[in-house]
Every structure is written in structure tokens, then in C-alpha cells.
């Protein structure tokens, strides 16, 4: 009933408004030029809403009510983690350090390879017949999850941290070179042009004109990837790639929740420390 009433009111209002616009239109006799893009924005919004609606069922979003009705189960499970047991903290710390070391090497190798690959996949640096193949290769590196690569490398180099390093290296190369190339595509081309007119070679143009412009962003992105690789390296432990992850999942599987809880706390502290450290590093170099 109220809805109908509202509709009535609204209808009335729009009638009134269109009357008003008509009178002003006749007065000035000049319609405003249509702003381009206003209908396009509406279409984009519509498309996003349609995509969300289409994904609702398959993603089982309808189960959201369980979050409230069955929250007790979660609480019960989580209560196992409430009393962390740090009795073996030395061992956990050692394993945590191994995880950080895995992430460090994986990220380092990725950064080294992402520099040329990122430049080669930037459209303002390389012709399409170079940047398209490089980009597709990077897509492949990025699309396949670290865990899948880790399984692959475990087969090749055996169980242990090195498989983790390789998995992180490949996946991070895919991500970082895309991010690096986006930074390169956003540079100011004018200093590079100026360097070109001095007779500098292509490589020199990149070294003196491009790299100084993107370096702060590149460093920032690399540090961020290092942080997220520490998290990823933890997960890689599950499939036997060493580090604290391996110990963590073993204890969860064995219902040693207090121990698992202690390890999680160590992981959280490490990631936070990394965040603080990388912030300081960023300030130092930028």
C-alpha cells in the first residue's frame, strides 16, 4: 500500500519536473549538449550488478545465514586455539626463519627476472611481437598457483625448501613483471625522448630515462611481494615445501591446536615485523 502511494507521489513529482524543464527549454530554446559517457557509466553499473546476480547461486552465497545460526561451531573450533602453547618456540622460530628465507630467495629471483621481462612486456618499450608473447608467458606464470608449481617442483627437486623457492620465484615473476610493466607504461616519456636525442642506445635510454622514474614504485611493489610471499611460503609448507607451514599443518592435522595457535601467532608477528621493516626500507630509498 505504502509503496503504491510512494509510486504515485513520485509519478506526480516527475510530471511536475518535466513540465518545469519543458518551460525552461522553450524559454532558452537550446537543449544542453549531452554529456558523453553518462549512458556508458550506467551500462557498466548494470553489467556489474548482472555479473554479481549471475554468480550468487554458483558461489552459494545463499548460505550466509549459517554464519549466524551456526556460529557456535566456529566458536567451538576456535576455542581450541585460545591457549597457545609456546613450549617449543625455539623450534617454531627456526622454522619461521626458514620460511622467511624461502620467501626472500623466491622474491629476489623474481625481482631480478621481472626487470627485463617487465620492460619487454610494456607496450611503450617493446613492439607488439615482443610484448605480446612475453605477456602471455607471464599470464601463464601468474595464472598457475604457487601450490601447483610447488607440487611440480617437489617432483623435480624433491621435498624441501628449494621446491618452495622455485614455486614462489615463478609465480612472483608472473605477478611482478605485470606490475613492473604497468609502472613503465605510466612513465613520463619526455625525459626518455630527450635522452634519445643525445644519441643514447635503447638500453641506455631505459637505464637513464625509465628506471629512475619507476624505481620507487618497483621497490615498493617488490617489498609488498616479499611480505605476501612470506604468507604464501607458509601455505607451501602444506605440500611439503618446508618451513613453518609444514609443521603448522602437521599439528593442525594432529589436533594440536595450542601448538598451532602458537605458530600462527609467530607468523602474524613476523608478517607485521616485515611490514614495519619494509616501510622503513621504503622511506630510506625513496
Amino acid at each position, binding site marked *: 500500500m505504502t509503496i503504491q502511494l510512494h509510486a504515485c507521489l513520485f509519478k506526480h513529482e516527475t510530471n511536475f519536473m518535466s513540465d518545469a524543464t519543458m518551460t525552461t527549454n522553450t524559454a532558452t530554446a537550446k537543449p544542453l549538449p549531452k554529456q558523453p559517457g553518462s549512458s556508458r557509466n550506467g551500462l557498466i553499473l548494470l553489467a556489474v550488478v548482472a555479473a554479481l546476480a549471475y554468480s550468487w547461486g554458483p558461489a552459494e552465497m545463499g548460505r550466509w545465514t549459517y554464519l549466524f545460526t551456526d556460529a557456535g561451531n566456529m566458536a567451538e573450533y576456535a576455542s581450541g586455539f585460545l591457549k597457545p602453547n609456546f613450549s617449543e618456540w625455539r623450534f617454531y622460530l627456526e622454522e619461521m626463519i626458514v620460511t622467511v628465507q624461502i620467501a626472500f630467495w623466491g622474491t629476489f629471483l623474481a625481482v631480478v627476472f621481472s626487470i627485463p621481462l617487465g620492460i619487454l612486456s610494456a607496450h611503450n618499450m617493446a613492439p607488439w611481437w615482443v610484448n605480446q608473447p612475453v605477456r602471455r608467458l607471464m599470464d601463464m606464470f601468474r595464472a598457475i598457483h604457487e601450490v601447483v608449481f610447488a607440487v611440480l617442483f617437489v617432483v623435480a627437486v624433491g621435498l624441501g625448501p628449494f621446491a618452495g623457492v622455485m614455486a614462489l620465484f615463478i609465480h612472483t615473476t608472473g605477478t611482478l613483471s605485470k606490475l613492473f610493466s604497468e609502472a613503465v607504461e605510466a612513465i613520463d616519456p*619526455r*625525459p626518455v625522448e*630527450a635522452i634519445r636525442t*643525445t*644519441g*643514447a642506445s635503447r638500453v641506455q635510454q631505459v637505464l*637513464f630515462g625509465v628506471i*629512475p622514474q619507476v624505481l620507487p614504485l618497483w621497490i615498493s611493489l617488490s617489498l609488498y611481494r616479499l611480505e605476501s610471499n612470506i604468507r604464501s611460503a607458509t601455505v607451501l609448507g602444506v605440500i611439503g615445501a618446508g618451513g613453518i607451514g609444514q609443521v603448522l599443518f602437521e599439528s593442525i592435522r594432529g589436533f594440536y591446536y595450542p601448538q598451532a595457535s602458537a605458530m600462527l601467532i609467530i607468523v602474524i608477528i613476523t608478517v607485521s615485523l616485515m611490514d614495519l621493516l619494509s616501510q622503513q626500507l621504503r622511506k630510506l630509498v625513496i
Partner: protein
Amino acid sequence: MSAITVSNLSKTFGKNRALDKVSLTVERGEMVALIGASGSGKSTLIRHIAGLETADSKGGRIDVLGDLCQDGGRLNPRLKRGRISVIFQQFNLVSRLSVMTNVLIGHLGRTPRWRGTLGVFNRDEKLKAHAALDRVGIPQVFAQRSSTLSGGQQQRAAIARTLVQEAEILIADEPISALDPSSARRVMDVLSSINSEDGITVVVSLHQVEYARRYCPRTIAMRDGAVVYDGPSTALSNEFLAELYGAASEELVLPDAPAGQAAPVAAMAAAAERERPRAELELA
């Protein structure tokens, strides 16, 4: 052998004709001004001569110092860059590098490739860079990041970079339009001395005809992508400009201050001058 020969150059951006059959010749040792309202094609012409842009196919050719630069929309693949040095409106220094490194970049075309790529410059090259900074009047800033300089200083650092390059031709694309009047004059003085003392051919595009009259014996005027005047700068009276450009000529000429208003300003300046010593005394 002429320094620059442009013959029948045309360039179209979409539907917009930016250059329309431009032909001109600049002899060695000349100092030529290129004037025109915004959008008249000055920058486009300069970018073509610098080899940063190619003309339309069948769009004419450019020769620089007797070598082909571009022909029919194709850059000469064996073009040896570095014989023309370019100064830009926005200076185009690498802002995160030091002034010294920016100036040393001018050497890149001539130092051995490996040394330039690794950024290893010898004593001689560094001395040259210092001398260039000295000459443009900013020897003290060599260690600063170039982004910390003022606009006028940045443009002078950019000139130092071209000095180090030791090119035979210098072309400048509106080098002073982003600068205040005193910096603009200083930059034009440096360009003029490069022309008269080093015998380097200078082509400079300018927005205001006063500078052309003062510094350049010859002026080429452009309108809508075509050359409409090429001759002595002294012949470019304000009336003639009005004839050439119509209403657009206003943007090319600085308004002359009316005599009636100049006097009070001068009187105020004199009064301020008298005021200053007293103020300083009070402070002391």
C-alpha cells in the same frame, strides 16, 4: 651544405593538418626564430627535425647536415642521433637523477657503449659537464636532484646537457614559455652566446615576437601548419603580425605598458628603494 633542409613536409593527426607542405632551409651558423600562435605547428615541426616524429607517407623529407633524417614518413634507419641537440619546453630532465648525471647524459651518444651503459664517465667528461654548468651560470647545484631546481635553473641544466653533447645544431622548442621574464632572458642570452661564440646553428621556437626581434636575425612565422613569413625579424612589426594572424596576433605580442601608468609604478619602486635601508637599520 645547409644545416637543416625541410622540403614539402606534411603531417596529419587524424583529420587535423598539423603541418602543411612546409619547406625551409637553415644555413650553418644561423640563429632562427620560429614563431606562431599555439597550435600553429611549431612544436610538431621541431619534433620532426629532431627525428622524434615521422611525417605522413609522401609527406616530404628532412635532411640534417647533408644526411637524410626522414623521407616519406620513414626515419632513416641509419640515422645517427646526437648531431642535433634539443631543448624542450618542459626541460625533460630526469627528475630523480642529480643535475650532474643529467648533464653527463649528454655524453651518451659519443662515449663507448659499455661505459655509457654502466654510467662510468671519465675525468675529462666530468670536467666538461662542470664547465657546461659553469657556463649556464649554475655551477653550485651539480649534486642536487634536478627536481629541486627552479624552472629557470632546470632549463639551464637542460642547456648544459646539450652543451656537453657538442652537437652542431641546437633546436629549442619554446624553451622560455614556462619561465618568468628574468629567467627567460637569461636562457635566451645563453642560447645567443652558444650561437655567436661556438658557431652552433640555433633554431628556437618562441611564443612572443619580442624575443625573436631581440635575439634572432631571421624569423620564420607559421600559421595553421604552414610557413607564412620567412625573413628578417626586424620586418615583423606589430601591424604586420596583425595582418598575418588577425586577432590571434595578440597572444604573440606583449602588451606595451601605457606611458601614463608606467610613471606611478616607477615612483613606487623608487619609494620602496628609499624605504629599504631604513627598514634594515631598524632591524639591526
